[in-house]
């Protein structure tokens, strides 16, 4: 359970609090995960006063602070008409599916990255944009490196922001039992003007996965099928997921080819 609560006023104070060991201190974003933690005993360091809630366009990238709330990002995207339409639309769709509006009002970007499972629509979409996680102290870790080995980055105490490309086209598709349900399979395709193509899959496992990052889209659907070759669990068979992953990626690439890039 939570035995102590701190609300630091500065990054340095936060880092000092986070160095506490007995009980261990952990950063608190929106509280949607930690508020229900019972074991082990922890102290929480609430980041709400650190000013990490800014969203800025920096050239061809969007930089969002660690405590940017999902709803805040969503509302930013609603208004950001200058962003590529497909990218905006895919991010909006994935964010709306990520959590209910109430949870989006408090859940933070960093908290979602740290705690997401494989069925996260937003992280699946975000991962396709090859985002970089920015940590206190200046270290930068690609999300694609972080997700499969989150425990290996335990030494990084405090995420301060996330930066991702906005000069790409992004598509997102999913299959679920109902329109607002968690995905059984979801896929995202990001394409840059250079032809670089990143394909990600979600709906299964501990985290969304990158299945292809290449100079052009050829072979993406095959790669998606291959990536979910053994992706069977209690929610869907591997056979189904493999076929649908390939189908969704193929569909998005065809649609992209038919409609042209919107950058």
């Amino acid at each position, binding site marked *: 359970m939570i035995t102590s*609560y701190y609300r630091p006023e500065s990054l340095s104070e936060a880092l000092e609090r986070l160095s506490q060991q007995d009980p261990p201190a952990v950063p608190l974003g929106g509280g949607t995960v930690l508020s229900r933690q019972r074991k082990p005993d922890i102290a929480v360091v609430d980041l709400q006063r650190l000013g990490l809630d800014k969203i800025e366009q920096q050239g061809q990238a969007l930089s969002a602070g660690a405590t940017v709330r999902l709803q805040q990002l969503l509302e930013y995207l609603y208004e950001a008409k200058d962003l590529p339409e497909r990218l905006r639309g895919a991010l909006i769709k994935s964010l709306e599916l990520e959590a*209910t509006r109430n949870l989006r009002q408090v859940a933070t970007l960093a908290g979602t990255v740290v705690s997401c499972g494989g069925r996260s629509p937003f992280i699946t979409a975000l991962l396709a944009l090859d985002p970089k996680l920015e940590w206190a102290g200046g270290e930068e870790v690609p999300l694609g490196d972080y997700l499969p080995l989150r425990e290996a980055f335990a030494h990084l105490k405090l995420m301060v922001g996330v930066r991702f490309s906005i000069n790409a086209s992004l598509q997102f598709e999913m*299959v679920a039992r109902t329109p607002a349900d968690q995905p059984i399979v979801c896929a995202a395709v990001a394409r840059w003007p250079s032809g670089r193509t990143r394909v990600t899959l979600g709906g299964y496992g501990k985290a969304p996965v990158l299945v292809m990052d290449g100079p052009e889209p050829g072979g993406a659907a095959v790669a998606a099928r291959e990536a979910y070759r053994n992706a069977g669990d209690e929610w869907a068979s591997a056979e189904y997921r493999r076929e649908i992953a390939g189908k969704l990626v193929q569909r998005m690439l065809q649609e992209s080819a038919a409609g042209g890039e919107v950058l």
Partner: protein
Amino acid sequence: MKITLKVNGDVKEWDIHPNDTLLQVLRREGFMGVKFGGCQEGECGACSVLMDGRLVNSCMMLAAQADGHRIETIEAVGQHPEQGWKKTEGLSVLQQAFVESGAIQCGYCTPAMILAGLNLINQTADPTEEQVRDALSPILCRCTGYQKPVQAILRAAAILRGEYVPPVDGGPAVGEGPQAEPGEGAEPAPAEWLGGPGAPEVPSETPAASTQVRPKTHLMPQIWTTPEAATRTTVGRPEQKVDAVKLVQGKPAFTDDFEIRNMLVAKVLRSPVAHARIKHIDVSKARELPGVAAVLTYRDIPRVVHSTAGQSDPIPGPLDTFSLDQKVRFVGDRVALIAAETEETALKAMELIDVEYEELPAVIDSRDAMKPGAPVIHDEPEYVPFGECDPQRNLAAEIRIDIGSVEKGFEEADYIFEYDYEVPKVQQAHIEPHVVITYWDEDDRLVIRSSTQVPFHARRILAPVLGLPVKRIRVIKPRIGGGFGGKQEVMIEDVAAHLTIATGRPVRYEYTREEEFTASRSRHPMRIHLKTGVKKDGTITANEMYTLADTGAYGCHALTVTGNTGHKAMALYVGDGPYRQTPNIRFYADIVYTNTPPSGAFRGYGVPQGFWAVERQMEKIAHELNLDPIEFRLKNALRSGELHPFSTAWSEGREPRPEIIHTVGLQECVRQGMIAAGWEDKYGNEAWHTVPGKPHLRRGIGVAFAMHGTAIPYLDMGGASLKMNDDGSFNLLVGATDLGTGSDTVLAQMAAEVLGIPVEDLIVYSSDTDFTPFDKGAYASSTTYISGAAVTRAAEQAAERIRIRAAKMLSGDDHQVRPEEIVLRDRKATAPDGRFVTMAQIAHDSLHHQDQEQIMGIGSYVSPASPPPFAAQFAEVTVDVETGQVAVDRLVMAVDSGVIVNPLTASGQIEGGMTQALGYAVSEEMVFDEKGRARERDLKDYHIFRANEMPELTTIFIETFEPSHPFGVKALAEIPLDGAAPAIGNAIFDACGAQVDVNPATPERVWRALRARDQ
């Protein structure tokens, strides 16, 4: 630690623990409008509050996080308009719109919806329906189908913009504007519709105004009325719910909104294994933990075998349950009961209990239950069998019904169709969890304050379990936050009661959402084999169903739920010609024990399972014989004046008695449903089935018929009493339990109709075993019919006394008025010459002035009939033929439920029921692994529909006048569960040829059916 918040404008300084959630603190400080849905992932949103103007879940954030912030709860919004000498501004416009629009059913999620609506209107003065649905999307409602809450917010926004909004009830308009045009309110019956006994006819009055402010979401249903209904003044009107004003304010009306000193928190240690004997249990460390008041095991309390099924005596099922036992029979079964000062302490104590299990082989799959050598789940010597059950074979109940001769019928058939179907275990998912508070009162009587559908059955069942006589138990049922059959189970009351007996202190026990999934009750999963004989012309010659039903670890409702599978679903299609008089029907069922959580009562009570099979089968037969699916069904369906085929064969485990069905509005349901669904333009129209530019999408339309029942004849009884007050108002005391359906309101409407008073002059109280008359409780679609007849009798008795007194008061030396000449209307008793005395004058006269008496009435009713409601359900879908994903675009339901007492509450029942059935069709199922562990433990994995993903819903009522009831009513609460899933299954087939025989129709199941089609 200390925190400072501004709550509803007042600065509050509170001491809290860092682990406290905002929800816990707010409720502790008395803000009871903030509700707890038992969830751990913030799925339900019942706990919503506004923090700095943003709607958030108070259960998903720490109170410490809110320090320094502004919080608004429902308590800040509106008040009762009249508080004695103090006048208030009354309810807010939005609250008033919720009240008027019938947007409140159980009311548990209403405060959250109000806050969501207010927040939206504050930000967007002219919201679209899509925006309203988005605003409501964080809040799960299991009752309404969201239709009326959406409409209420749209109406309130329009009123606040100063626009004209037509009234719901045809009364004075709200706002300025033109007179309403005739529209989608009550509709006249078609001219060609010929009258007959019980048949509707064209009303003489102008149809009511359209009440819609947006085209897609309908507030009032279409109603095709009967002539009898036209003579009523209160019955048939969209009266406001009698409990709406308190619920819309979030008043402390529910079980847990109750404070008492020294209350302990109960928790239950549950089994991690599916089948085991407890070899050793050591609770000493738990008992020593400071703050622990009691830890009870099977060694500490009496071993009393009973059934948890809340049914009339004798319970038609085995007695196979103990409060605590040395054996556990499913993952989640009880091991020990704990009472502690706080929840944290109780949870810590649970961890300190040392249990050694001797694990036994388990039965998880119902098909293994009766195999030779299968482990015996109930080997206890105290087991009391009922009927044909055989615990040695894991058989909880057996049904063998033969009507006519199916062998002869199959011989006479030109074609035989045989298919297998499967339906899953599903959860009621009421938003208020099971919750109970128990305490000793000043007379050393045990008070049980419980969210129960069956307070009187609970008292009777618990008395021997607790070692108390019935007279020393009082069960109080406050408002219920949804039940749907889940609270027709006496399942948690004994936990708190044992702990109160052990400690002498009040005890509160509330299920978590996980317990709702792992240790509650659910719909019986079934495997069904159906064989049908048909002649070339489409005449059904015989119908045979075998059902293997899974009752889980205990046999509660095993016989009766599965009996209804056959009794309703297999009764609808009797065949045509001579088969109408002598249908050939066989219904055999084995209901088996498995080591999974027990099944039980769930709205529909076995009938949705049966109709999934029957209606999928009818569609296949029609398709394979190239028959029109609707004509084929109508040709073989029951008609008025015919014998209910099962009425001579089965009656819930009791003696059957023949029953003629007097009213069948099915044909007109079909006709009106077809028009509303656009059937003629869509069915068989290839162009309509395609989606331009999307070759992977196919559209489809499907139909299913349904019939249900109304109460249990010759068995279930309801009672009511009525007394007159000084001002001419009345207290109406009913044992019936309104679990959000609006039954208190429709009962009041019936009493008001008889007494000639407005509903507002009735103070309805339900239910308390000390004060209200007996009622069997809320189940079997019986309250309006059974309890309504009881209320009518009580009101007629009181009316008779009123007429006698009024006649005396109006008579003089020169003129005598006879009581039977007195007309009661408009709060007056009026003589033929127009002179009258008011109800208040009569009351005053009777209580204070002459020949003093308490004018009152009592009534009870048990029905000799169970008149079935009928329905035609239509569904439209779009199927992605590459992924198998199904989008349900529209549901249309036309229902014959007899006379509709209140169109708003009635249509709310249909909309909410269709929404539950929609989940049953495409997303809801409970799955267990090979060890009996549940896959679904929350409302995230067990997905129920949210406001922003709903299809369009259309409700049509085809009234008939059921002669066995004084107001002509039949049931309506359960029938909407029956048709949606098969109609959707049939629409999927129509779209793409995929035969999905296992529901829900998940994407993978549809995808596999598509592959099977292509092979």
